[in-house]
């Protein structure tokens, strides 16, 4: 008897909470019927990407453009660094809660598409207009007959140098077409003059794509047609050992410096005068380092072979769990094809894949530099990589981690090679 007031209070609480859920459900009917979404007020899309502050600034502008043109769609943006990006996506994918629209990487597309986590864009009527995109690029987003990714740009590997730092060091800038031995000698010379504050370069052997490029120069391939490893342990050993002398003589940036500036790059933090990476990194390098100009040239060669290739720099994908496929497709279409968006991003997402955006890129400054670079290397290009197998992202990540261990002196090259092969084989098996 005593607990009657308590029960009454509990009942009241229940009533209130039911009321709340009822209220909460109030704006749902529109979603359920699917057709009349536009009429039911603004739709909110979750959108996420990885990238630097520079990209975030541009993204904010592009999103504002989109929202102005589509008052019925609101974009909720979110961004992180590259490594954390994939950990989050894996968690979300497992729980069926991927964002509506995502920036995607070539290395991960198959992994997610294979598992049904991405929306087949062919299923969305009047979806994304792909007509402006070069035919050779479209297969990058196609897996087993479905279109799961829209390539929005292309990139190629390049070598950057910071002319101010080079002058400051008092060395000649690196020359086009130099060999690996010449480049390593250049690094040694530059680092010697840097006096422990500036170095010629970081340990580039931790970057899987550069290893891939080196293999291409030797006429080899990293993966075979079935997506299995096509290299010998000796290949990787030779690659990782090629900077041994530089590591031991302190001619490359010490590992602890790299750790402390992370997630910024060594070039962005002005620790190195050169760095090799993708050619769409130019804008980020300029922003991070504050340098007035950064020069680009082709990376070192083997017997005159460049081994350069063009691949999709990034793609757009839509989560299979989205409640608003039409709106999401509309947003992807806008980001891929709208000329103004093309102007905002320039070449920072890679050279734009769609013709309308490529034409809109201002032919001056850093953007012109990137366009010129891709034009210069276009005559002598290797074939583009086939869609990458699931687990490729792990291959990249592991090589970077093992390279760090080597640079901290915690692991020998032999150990690193053994461990990379174990991890890579396990990852590709999945």
């Amino acid at each position: 008897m005593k607990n009657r007031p308590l029960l009454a209070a509990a009942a009241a609480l229940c009533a209130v909470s039911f009321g709340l859920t009822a209220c909460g459900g109030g704006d749902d009917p529109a979603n359920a019927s699917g057709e009349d979404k536009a009429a039911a007020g603004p739709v909110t899309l979750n959108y996420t990407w990885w990238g630097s502050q520079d990209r975030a600034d541009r993204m904010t502008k592009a999103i504002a453009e989109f929202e102005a043109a589509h008052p019925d769609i609101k974009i909720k943006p979110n961004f992180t660094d590259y490594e954390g990006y994939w950990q989050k996506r894996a968690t979300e994918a497992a729980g069926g809660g991927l964002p509506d629209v995502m920036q995607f990487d070539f290395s991960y597309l198959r992994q997610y598409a294979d598992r049904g986590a991405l929306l087949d864009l062919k299923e969305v009527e009047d979806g994304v207009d792909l007509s402006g995109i070069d035919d050779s690029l479209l297969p990058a987003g196609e897996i087993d007959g479905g279109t799961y990714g829209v390539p929005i740009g292309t990139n190629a590997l390049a070598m950057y140098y910071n002319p101010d730092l080079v002058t400051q060091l008092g060395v000649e800038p690196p020359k086009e077409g130099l060999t690996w031995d010449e480049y390593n000698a250049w690094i040694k010379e530059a680092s010697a003059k840097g006096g422990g504050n500036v170095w010629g370069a970081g340990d580039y052997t931790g970057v899987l794509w550069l290893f891939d490029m080196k293999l291409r120069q030797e006429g080899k391939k990293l993966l075979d047609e079935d997506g299995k490893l096509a290299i010998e342990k000796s290949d990787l050993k030779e690659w990782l050992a090629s900077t041994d002398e530089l590591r031991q003589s302190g001619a490359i940036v010490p590992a602890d410096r790299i750790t402390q500036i992370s997630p910024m790059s060594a070039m962005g933090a002005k620790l190195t005068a050169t760095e090799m990476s993708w050619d769409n990194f130019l804008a980020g390098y300029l922003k991070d380092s504050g340098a007035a100009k950064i020069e680009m040239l082709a990376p070192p060669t083997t017997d005159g072979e460049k081994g350069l290739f063009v691949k999709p720099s990034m793609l757009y994908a839509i989560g299979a769990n989205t409640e608003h496929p039409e709106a999401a497709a509309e947003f992807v279409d806008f980001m891929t094809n709208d000329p103004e968006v093309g102007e905002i991003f320039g070449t920072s997402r890679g050279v734009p894949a769609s013709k309308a955006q490529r034409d809109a890129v201002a032919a001056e400054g850093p953007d012109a530099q990137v366009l010129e670079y891709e034009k210069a290397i276009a005559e002598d290009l290797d074939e583009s990589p086939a869609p990458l197998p699931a687990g490729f992202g792990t291959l990249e990540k592991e090589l970077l981690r093992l390279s760090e261990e080597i640079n901290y002196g915690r692991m020998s090259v032999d150990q690193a090679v053994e461990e990379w092969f174990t991890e890579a084989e396990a990852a590709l098996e999945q």
Partner: protein
Amino acid sequence: MSTLQAQPLRAEASAPAPVDYRRARRAETRSGYFFLAPWLIGFLLLTAGPMLASLYLAFTDYNLFRDPKWIGLENFEKLFNDSRYLQSVKVTLIYVLVGTPVKLAAALAVALLLNSGRKAQGFYRSAFYAPSLIGASVSIAIVWKALFSDGGIVDLGMTGMGFQPGGWVGDPDKTMPMMILLATWQFGAPMVIFLAGLKQVPRELYEAASVDGAGALRRFWSITVPMLSPVIFFNLLLETINAFQVFASAFIISGGAGGPAGSTLFYTLYLYIRGFGDARMGYASAMAWVLAVVIGLITWVMFRTSKGWVHYSGETK
């Protein structure tokens, strides 16, 4: 007691205006469960269910997307050939074995100071507790990273004193001391418990000891420590279990990778990397269960050995 009284009453059902105790008790039980329900549902759905699921997954090859494939003990066998796993065990053990005693010593020392009955006690107590309130947050780990970076305050201060530590964050030999310092700094929770324990120690014991000529040190070892031993035991148990599960600070400071060179690869961080970074959820589940069993064993051992050194007042031997 109520059962005994209820029985005879129920037997003479024809008595005028009988009080149906059984029904009242059933109602009471029902409302008991009712009030327990939020916790119970949460426990079953959010803790027990997932734990059972992960027990199953530990014996499977499961990559988050495809159906789990039963592989028996393979995950557990792999663990002991995985050099990074062994590294994570080593890192975690050092953290637990060094960090926990250091943290408890700091907590006890501050509790003793605060127990001496000086002025503004309330203020000091709050001030010393504050780091624990904000300590688990992401922002503190970020601040910590900045403090210990190259050219950070710690580096500058120590350089000023003639040491040349450089940045702690990038040096694999210095990240562990840094992590232990971060944990030690958050001694607030055990401190408050120690303080409460200290208040329970009867004054007379100290007075009698003083009269007998015992010095401060003697009084501490012969009165404070034995009288406080149940509280010490409680704190030791909790802090050990907590230390095994450290995650957030290591995740932030190493950018989620356990670096540099695996020096902050704590057990739970490696578990996260395997489970969510590499999508090897079966393997990660196996790791989780090994950890749960080990913590269980350690707790059991601590309880068993506690009989030798923990004294409960009123207990006679």
